[in-house]
């Protein structure tokens, strides 16, 4: 069990550290480095502990219950292959973190970088260790997201934003394809567990859906690993800081695609389609990447294309799929990660110290920075595949696999030639890098005088280069057992014979290597001037620029096509849309209710209901009047609407709903205030809108009137039908019976809100908080229409008479009312559990109390005396509610379980005390905050637009 928990820790630790790293102060570079470095060290430590269990074909599977009721578990598994990959992620991660400490400039906000790097390490760990294929896709997409954040780290730069977006669009779309593939695989196999899937290889390949699954799966893997024709995102991702390029875009994340190919090789591989597509694409990418890299003048661009090329190599090996090819692929994953990470870091050092990455300007750097130069030269020799270095060995194995594999197809026959040619280009661009950057005359026009970097910045490069050498000289000692464990994890225990040695005698791969090397030297040296001075890449490659096609394609798919669809499918304008919605609602109601039996008896109206009828004659007249007047007489409409509201409120009182009546009354006040405040910003409507009385508007109004009348009649019919039938058993009965016994309150409505259905209420108040914040945010940038800026006429006149005297008596009364209203709010709050009242009503009351102060005096007067922080009220409210809910977890109960008892307080008597009351306190606080923030935000607009210059102030100045 310890091992399982360690496995979980391996995934969780980076995320926890990422959260911590994000909270550190902006300048704390050393603390960040220590935190992140230690996290990686912990991961490496865990991996060291786990190694005995995964060596020689062992594996650990940890299952953690997550959402048991719907069968979702977190499954993590580690075997030799995943272990080796994790060592890369944690090991290179640690070096990159050290390197980044010295690479990042003093102005760069490092917490964001480290936090993202750690989150990336966590996502990568999750991806590698997932034992469930859906979970794997989730982590897969998470790596794309973090990569997006990291590429866009310098978000003030256009190229960083574009590169980040492109990378996200390409890799995340691939991830979606992968998700579909995984769902299909899960359906075919009948299980989403990775182990079951890997065992069901024959079942999947024989299934009729196999081609679909394969294509979708490969789309996912190829987009991530930058395979042709999706390779274009990787060079654009080089806008990221160099530590990021070194970590994500050469060593680990881009390897996720090939990791997946190798991981799923037992399940999906071994077919002819697999070989043709994977090897074919791999070889094209290999050659194309190597070819383009030769013509790149930007160091990072060259390295990016070289990475694409090497990923193509690994993909081709995965496509060949023989045991030896798979072993070579794993070996090359490690080797490439090591030398390419070191090269990226070296390129970063050159950029950092010399101020440019342009190979046309860099020259003779070996004289400025001899140690870095020697390290970079060794690393690029490994990239070229020079003997005694690790790149040589895995390249030999690749040549061997390409040479010995035979199935008679055209692709298979072409493979050795493509391999040699790509090897030649690879040697050529490595040579170009070494010669142009480090040798030749000393560069004179560099932005900085180059010098050796801080020794700790060079240390990661040195370590990686040392590994290159060590693996290259003694491969069996360095990597032998690890590689074997990884290979067993993919291929099963019966590995064919292979040997990791430098010298196998003179054989075909060696001859191919020699040809490639000499050809490479020729390729570079002969047209050297032309390459060094020429444009980036031959004309054909520039024409085939997929990156440039990306933007128009994106524009087409995210703008032009949707717009065309919108034109075709949507109703034009809000009115048409609302009309369509209303008509659809009516049609829905008709088809749902029309077929029912409608034998509704006509009810009698007796004399006792006369008052009620009179009430609604007034109410109905108000509603119709409001509808009539809303266009030209807004204030009248508001008053009439308030009338309808009052009648509704009275209806609630009449029909045994005191809680509703209280709330309705209070909300009515708040709504009216709100609309009064808002009305000031609307255009004056003292003359008729032109063309309003023509025939077509009249026709439109008539049609809408018809719709409205039908809606009204329909609602009357439905209500009547329901009201005149006997109710069946209602859930309400249960609430009535249990409210006191289980909720400890006698006011059932309140008990439902804060106890039985408290989670719903929690959602409601969250909505309220969101609306409050949205209102606030929308109004922060509010600009009024020019003609509304002027202060309204009545207000100006009032100011001339001095507002204070004009409203003096009411203002004093309103100020006096402040304390009684707060007392009323408290009263409503405390009686809420047993009698009508509660958090909602108390909150609105309190807010109105505050609001009255604003009405009574001017804003500045109030705010000089009262500190009102509505956002804190809201924050406190939602925290109290959530904490009350979470508190029940401590006692092992589900979220929002309440506890209650009656307390006997001297002088006051028995007082209900329950945790539901605390929850209600949260509701109260949130409602206060939300209403106050909305009203004050609107009221403040007047202040911002027209700064108050009172006559008295003006006089004082004179």
């Amino acid at each position, binding site marked *: 069990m310890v091992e399982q928990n360690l496995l979980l820790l391996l995934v969780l630790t980076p995320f926890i550290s990422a959260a911590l790293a994000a909270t550190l102060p902006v300048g704390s570079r050393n603390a960040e480095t220590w935190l992140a470095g230690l996290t990686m060290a912990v991961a490496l430590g865990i991996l060291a502990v786990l190694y005995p269990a995964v060596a020689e074909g062992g594996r650990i599977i940890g299952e953690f219950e997550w959402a048991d009721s719907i069968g979702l578990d977190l499954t993590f598994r580690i075997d030799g292959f995943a272990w080796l990959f994790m060592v890369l992620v944690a090991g290179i991660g640690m070096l990159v973190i050290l390197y980044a400490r010295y690479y990042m400039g003093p102005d760069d906000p490092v917490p964001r970088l480290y936090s993202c790097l750690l989150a990336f390490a966590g996502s990568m760990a999750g991806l590698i260790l997932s034992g469930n294929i859906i979970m794997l896709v989730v982590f897969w997409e998470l790596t794309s997201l973090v990569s997006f954040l990291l590429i866009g780290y310098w978000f003030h730069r256009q190229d960083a934003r574009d590169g980040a977006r492109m990378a996200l669009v390409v890799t995340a779309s691939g991830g979606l394809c992968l998700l579909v593939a995984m769902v299909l695989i899960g359906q075919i196999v009948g299980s989403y567990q990775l182990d079951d899937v890997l065992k069901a290889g024959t079942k999947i390949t024989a299934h009729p859906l196999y081609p679909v699954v394969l294509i979708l799966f490969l789309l996912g893997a190829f987009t991530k690993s930058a395979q042709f024709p999706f390779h274009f995102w990787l060079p654009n991702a080089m806008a990221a800081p160099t530590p990021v390029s070194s970590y994500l875009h050469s060593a680990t994340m881009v390897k996720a695609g090939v990791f997946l190919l190798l991981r799923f090789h037992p399940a999906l591989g071994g077919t002819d389609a697999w070989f043709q597509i994977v090897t074919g694409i791999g070889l094209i990418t290999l050659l194309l990447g190597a070819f383009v890299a030769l013509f790149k003048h930007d160091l990072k661009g060259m390295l990016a294309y070289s990475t694409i090329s090497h990923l193509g190599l690994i993909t081709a090996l995965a496509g060949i799929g023989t045991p030896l090819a798979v072993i070579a692929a794993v070996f090359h994953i490690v080797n490439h990660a090591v030398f390419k990470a070191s090269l990226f870091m070296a390129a970063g050092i050159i950029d950092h110290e010399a101020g440019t990455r342009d190979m046309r300007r860099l020259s003779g750097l070996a004289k400025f920075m001899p140690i870095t130069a020697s390290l970079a030269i060794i690393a690029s020799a490994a990239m070229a595949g020079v003997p005694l270095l690790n790149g040589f060995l895995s390249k030999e194995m690749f040549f061997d696999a390409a040479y010995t594999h035979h199935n008679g197809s055209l692709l298979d026959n072409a493979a050795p030639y493509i391999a040699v040619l790509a090897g030649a280009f690879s040697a050529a661009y490595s040579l170009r890098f070494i010669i142009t950057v480090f040798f030749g005359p000393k560069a004179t026009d560099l932005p900085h005088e180059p010098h050796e970097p801080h020794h700790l910045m060079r240390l990661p490069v040195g370590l990686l280069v040392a590994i290159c050498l060590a693996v290259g000289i003694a491969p069996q000692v360095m990597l032998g057992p690890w590689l074997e464990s990884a290979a067993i994890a993919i291929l099963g225990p019966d590995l064919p014979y292979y040997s990791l040695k430098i010298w196998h005698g003179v054989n075909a791969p060696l001859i191919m290597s020699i040809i490639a090397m000499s050809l490479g030297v020729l390729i570079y040296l002969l047209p050297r001037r032309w390459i060094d001075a020429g444009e980036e890449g031959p004309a054909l490659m520039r024409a085939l620029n997929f990156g440039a096609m990306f933007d128009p394609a994106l524009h087409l798919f995210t703008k032009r096509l949707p717009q065309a669809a919108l034109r075709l499918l949507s109703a034009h304008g809000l009115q048409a849309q609302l009309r369509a919605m209303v008509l659809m609602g009516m049609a829905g109601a008709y088809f749902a209710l029309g077929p029912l039996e409608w034998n509704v008896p006509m009810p009698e109206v007796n004399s006792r209901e006369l008052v009620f009828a009179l009430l609604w004659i007034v109410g109905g007249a108000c509603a119709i009047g409001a509808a009539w007047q809303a266009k030209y007489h807004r204030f009248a409409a508001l008053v009439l609407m308030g009338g309808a509201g009052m009648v509704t409120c009275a209806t609630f009182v009449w029909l045994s709903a005191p809680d509703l009546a209280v709330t309705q009354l209070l909300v009515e006040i*708040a709504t009216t205030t709100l609309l009064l405040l808002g009305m000031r910003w*609307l255009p004056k409507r003292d003359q008729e809108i032109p063309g309003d009385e023509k025939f077509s508007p009249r026709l439109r109004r008539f049609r809408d009137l018809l719709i409205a009348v039908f809606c009204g009649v329909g*609602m009357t019919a439905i209500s009547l039908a329901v009201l005149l039938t006997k109710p069946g058993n209602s859930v309400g009965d249960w*609430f009535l019976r249990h409210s*006191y016994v289980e909720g400890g309150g006698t006011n059932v409505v309140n008990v*439902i809100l804060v106890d039985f259905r408290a989670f719903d209420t929690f959602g409601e108040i969250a909505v309220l908080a969101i609306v409050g914040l949205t209102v606030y945010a929308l*109004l922060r940038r509010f600009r009024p229409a020019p003609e509304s800026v002027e202060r309204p006429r009545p207000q100006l006149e009032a100011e001339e008479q001095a507002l204070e005297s004009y409203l003096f008596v009411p203002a004093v009364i309103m100020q006096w009312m402040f304390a009684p209203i707060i007392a009323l709010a408290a009263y409503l709050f405390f009686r809420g559990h047993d009698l009508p009242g509660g958090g*909602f009503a108390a909150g609105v009351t309190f807010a109105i109390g505050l609001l009255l102060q604003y009405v009574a005096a001017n804003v500045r007067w109030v705010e000089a005396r009262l500190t009102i922080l509505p956002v804190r009220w809201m924050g406190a409210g939602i925290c109290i509610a959530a904490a009350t809910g979470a508190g029940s977890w401590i006692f092992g109960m589900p979220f929002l379980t309440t506890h209650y008892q009656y307390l006997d307080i001297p002088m006051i008597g028995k007082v209900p005390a329950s945790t539901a009351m605390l929850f209600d306190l949260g509701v109260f606080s949130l409602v206060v905050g939300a209403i106050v923030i909305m009203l004050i935000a*609107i009221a403040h607009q007047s202040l911002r637009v027209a700064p108050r210059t009172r006559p008295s102030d003006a006089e004082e100045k004179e």
Partner: protein
Amino acid sequence: MELILAIAIGILTGSGVWLLLRPRSYQVIVGLCLLAYGVNLFIFAMGRLYVGAAPIMPKGGFVDPTAYADPLPQALVLTAIVISFATTALFLVVMIASRGITGTDHVDGKERSQ
């Protein structure tokens, strides 16, 4: 009683819908408020009508559910009232912001003739 309330719901809904289909944003706001009254009353009416039977329980003892109004629709409507206030506020702010930006109070941000 039932008939009156049903007609009231119909009138409120009808007025609300008519205003909802109008071109001026203020009309739409008033319409939404009226519609909210109608819909709240409608939901409330689903629990049937009781006079003088507020759902306030005695402390302990036997409870006869038929003697009290159904509390469930009331609880639903209570939150609906608060939420409809919030949406009114939101819409009002969108309205005045849109009015500031576009210079018109037409719901589409431009007059029909333009």
